[in-house]
């Protein structure tokens, strides 16, 4: 079963970290990615640029579309990236999420969302 782990964190938290803390976090990500690659569970993932670079596209009031700079929602935590894993159990997916530095260092949360399958069984 595939799960997408959505990473939400406070933009700019990295700027407040010392160099050691920052390196430690990079190291932790490395360790997890290596483990997931070796186990054949890693399907993909991307980190997103700072929310300041966001452009939001939405339906315009008078028809057509409207494009504005910046994210629509001003919230404390922003969507920062994701990784997709293919694991045996939902518990395993949650375990990976719990070890992700954003959670482990208390600067963000991870949402674990099952990915829809194309296969369907006869009803």
């Amino acid at each position: 079963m595939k799960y997408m782990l959505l990473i939400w964190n406070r933009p700019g938290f990295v700027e407040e970290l010392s160099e050691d803390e920052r390196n430690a976090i990079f190291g932790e990500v490395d360790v997890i990615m290596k483990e997931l690659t070796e186990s054949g569970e890693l399907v993909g993932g991307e980190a997103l640029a700072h929310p300041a670079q966001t452009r939001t596209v939405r339906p315009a009031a008078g028809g057509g579309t409207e494009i504005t700079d910046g994210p629509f929602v001003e919230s404390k935590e922003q969507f920062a990236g994701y990784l997709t894993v293919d694991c045996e159990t939902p518990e395993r997916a949650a375990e990976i999420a719990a070890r992700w530095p954003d959670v482990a260092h208390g600067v963000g949360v991870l949402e674990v969302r099952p990915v829809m399958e194309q296969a369907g069984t006869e009803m």
Partner: protein
Amino acid sequence: MTDRAVEDLLRALAPQVLGVLVRRHGQFYACEDAVQEALLAAATQWPAQGVPDHPRSWLVTVATRRLTDEWRSERARRDREVAVAVREPAYAAVAPPADEEPPSGDDTLKLLFLCCHPALTVSAQVALTLRAVGGLSTAEIARAYLVPEATMSQRIRRAKQRIEAAGARFAMPSPADRDARLRAVLHVLYLVFNEGYTASSGAELHRAELTGEAIRLARELRRLLPDDGEVAGLLALMLLTDAHRAARTGPGGELVPLAEQDRTRWDRVEIAEGVALVTEALTWSAPGPYQVQAAIAAVHAEAPTAADTDWPQIVALYRVLARLAPNPMVTLNQAAAVAMVDGPRAGLALLAPLDVDERTANHHRLAAVRAHLLELAGDRDDARAAYLAAARATTSLPERHYLEVRAARLATDR
């Protein structure tokens, strides 16, 4: 020979060639890699240059050469690393030239048992079986399971390491282990089948091939174990299920439930074979879960219309299945069948215990069956709510679409 014919030939030869190599050299890990490389070489050369006179010998020779090349380069590296203690590879066993010994079915069986070793996760068993026994390339397996090739490659590598670490041997399991191991093999083939049995539109074709692959491997297993009723039962179940393929999806890829399928589109050849297989198996074998499920599918297959279905017979078979393999999913299907004999309220009553069973309490199938029975009972509002609950709980796109459509129908056409 067409590409397709070459591919079929290679898939059939794959376990035979691997069997020959592993028997000669041991070292399942290295042999499996070497055979995979030989298969890839053949897949590129044969369609263009023609199939050699002795394709199996050709593959054995090429795979053996890859294996010895690998050993040589490994030894060369070790020779450079003087400090490292010398571990002689099984070099004395380097291959004799191409041979004509007959293929051994035992090899294929031993490979299946090895690939379905209990040290592996189920997804690893599946991947390794498809590659080592099915002869599929890593790229093909990755496409079928919608993961990057690197991911699948790593999964297979890890599976082979686990097998080595577990000290698993290329041999028949002990009599004490054999039943459990065979059950694991059947389960893996069943999973491969189900993975491929999907709404097959363009993007899904690679997955649909898995169904054919599962049937092919089940046929091979049946040839090797003709006296096993459950092997026959599994093959029959696959054939009887696959027979619905053309009828089970509508023009837009939407799921059509069994009761509404155009039965003239069912595959009569598959049905005849499946019915004959399970009927025959049940005359001499103690019934097992796959045989009983196949028997249920056969009763459906023999009804000219949904209304003609022999529901009392199906209820009786579910009772047998519930005794053989007690499982809340069986209860669920049993409830749906009971509803057709004793009315929807009787079916709904059977569902009640499943609400407190943690295996089913939040399962979309429970909500879907309940929705269906409530609809039959004329309770439209509760039926609609249950369909929507099922739609929220499923992780399958075609199922979600189907369930939402059923819910929408109840909201509108009064």
